[in-house]
C-alpha cells in the first residue's frame, strides 16, 4: 500500500495529502456554490441555481423528516454545508491519484534510509479528505459539540433528564450511547470512503484487465459517496433533533 507524506513542521506532523485534499474540497465546494448563486433570479433561475435550489429542497425535506418543520430553518445552512462538503470530498479521491516514488531519503517527509532499504516506498499525494479518520473525526467532533451545545442551551431539562431514562441505572448505557454516536459517525464515513479507495488502488494493480471493474467500482463509489454524505447529514439532524428539540405533543 501507499504511504502518505508527513511533513514535520516543528512539533506538528502535517499530513500533506489530507491538507491538500481538505483545501481542494473547500475550494471546490465554495466555487460550486458561488457559481450556482452567481446570477440569482426570482423568476428566471439559471440551471445551476435550479440545481442548488433542488439541493436546498432536498436538504429541507431531509431535516424536516428528523424534526418538526418549523424548527428546520436554523439548520439549513449546516445541513447543506455538510452534505455538499462531504459529497465533494467523497468524490475527490475517485478520478485519479498522484503517487511518487522517492529514491532518496527525505527527512522532512519522514522518508528514512531504513524505509528505502526495506523495499519499495510510494507516496500518495491525492485522496479524499474523508478517507482519513482524522478528518471524519473532526467532522464528528463538530457535530458532537453542536448537538450537546444545542441540547444544553435550548432543551436543558429534557436533555439532562434523558441520561437517566427510563431509570437512573441506565446512566452508563446512555453515556456509552452518547459517545458511540460521534464515533460511529466518523468511522462509518471514513471506512466507506477509505475502503473504496483501497479497492480502486487494488484494481489498478491488476493492470489493463481491471478496467471494467474499475469503471463499475468508480460508479459504485459515486453512489456510496452520495449515500454517505446523505447519511452523515441525516444522522446529524436526527441527533440534533433528539437532543435539542423537545416536542411537547409527543411527551406529556
Amino acid at each position, binding site marked *: *500500500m501507499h*504511504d*502518505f507524506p*508527513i511533513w514535520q513542521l516543528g512539533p*506538528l*506532523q*502535517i*499530513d500533506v495529502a*489530507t*491538507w491538500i485534499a*481538505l*483545501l481542494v*474540497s*473547500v475550494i471546490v*465546494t*465554495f466555487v460550486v*456554490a*458561488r457559481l*450556482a*448563486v452567481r446570477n*440569482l*433570479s*426570482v*423568476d428566471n433561475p439559471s440551471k445551476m*441555481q435550479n440545481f*442548488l*435550489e433542488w439541493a*436546498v429542497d432536498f436538504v429541507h425535506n431531509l431535516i424536516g423528516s428528523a424534526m418538526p418543520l418549523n424548527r428546520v430553518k436554523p439548520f*439549513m*445552512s*449546516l445541513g*447543506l*454545508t455538510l452534505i*455538499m*462538503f462531504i459529497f465533494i470530498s467523497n468524490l475527490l479521491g475517485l478520478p485519479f491519484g498522484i503517487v511518487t516514488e522517492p529514491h532518496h531519503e527525505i527527512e522532512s517527509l519522514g522518508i528514512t534510509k531504513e524505509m528505502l532499504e526495506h523495499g519499495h516506498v510510494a507516496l500518495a499525494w491525492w485522496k479524499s*479528505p474523508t478517507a*482519513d*479518520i*482524522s*478528518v*471524519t*473525526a*473532526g*467532522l464528528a*467532533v*463538530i457535530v458532537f459539540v453542536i448537538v450537546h451545545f444545542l441540547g444544553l442551551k435550548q432543551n436543558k431539562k429534557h436533555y439532562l433528564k434523558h441520561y437517566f431514562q427510563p431509570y437512573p441505572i441506565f446512566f452508563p448505557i446512555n453515556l456509552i450511547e452518547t459517545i458511540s454516536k460521534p464515533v460511529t459517525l466518523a468511522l462509518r464515513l471514513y471506512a466507506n470512503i477509505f475502503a473504496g479507495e483501497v479497492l480502486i488502488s487494488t484494481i489498478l494493480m491488476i493492470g489493463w484487465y481491471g478496467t471494467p471493474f474499475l469503471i463499475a467500482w468508480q460508479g459504485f463509489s459515486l453512489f456510496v459517496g452520495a449515500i454517505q454524505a446523505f447519511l452523515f447529514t441525516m444522522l446529524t439532524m436526527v441527533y440534533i433533533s433528539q437532543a435539542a428539540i423537545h416536542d411537547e405533543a409527543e411527551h406529556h
Partner: protein
Amino acid sequence: MGWHWESTVIAMVAFGILYWLLSKYAFGPLFSIMEQRRQLVLEQMNTAESSRKQAEANMAEQKAALDQARKDAYDIIEQARTTSTKQADDIVQTAKTEATRLKDDALKDIESEKNKAIAALRTEVGGISVKIASKIIEKQIDEKSQEQLVNQYLKEVGSK
C-alpha cells in the same frame, strides 16, 4: 496511515470556514431569493383569487342587471297591454253611449215632431170647425146656398 490530530483540527477549521463562507456568500442570498419567490407566488395567488372574486361579483352584477332589464321589459309590455285593453273598452263604451244618446235624441225628435203635428192638426181642425160654424151661421138662409157651401167646403178639403 495513522492518527494525526493536526488533521482533525485543520478539518474542523476548514469546515468552520466553509460553513461561514457558504452561509454568507451562497446560502444567504439563495435563501432570500427563494423566500422572495415564495412571497411572489403567494402574492400572485392572492391576486388571482381576488380577481376571480371580482369576476364573480361582476358576473352576478351583470346577471342581476339582465334580470332587471327583462323584468322591466315584461312590465312595459304588460302595462301596454292593460292600457290598450282599457282604451279599447273606453272607445267601445263611448261609442255605445254615443249611439244610445243619438237614438234617444232621434226618438225624442220623432216624439216632439209627432206632438207638434198633432197640435198643429188640432189647431187647424179647431179653426176649420170655427170657420165651418161661422159659415153655417152666415149661410143659414137657404138650403141651396147651404148645399153649395158644403160642396164648396168639401171641395176645399178634398183639394187640400
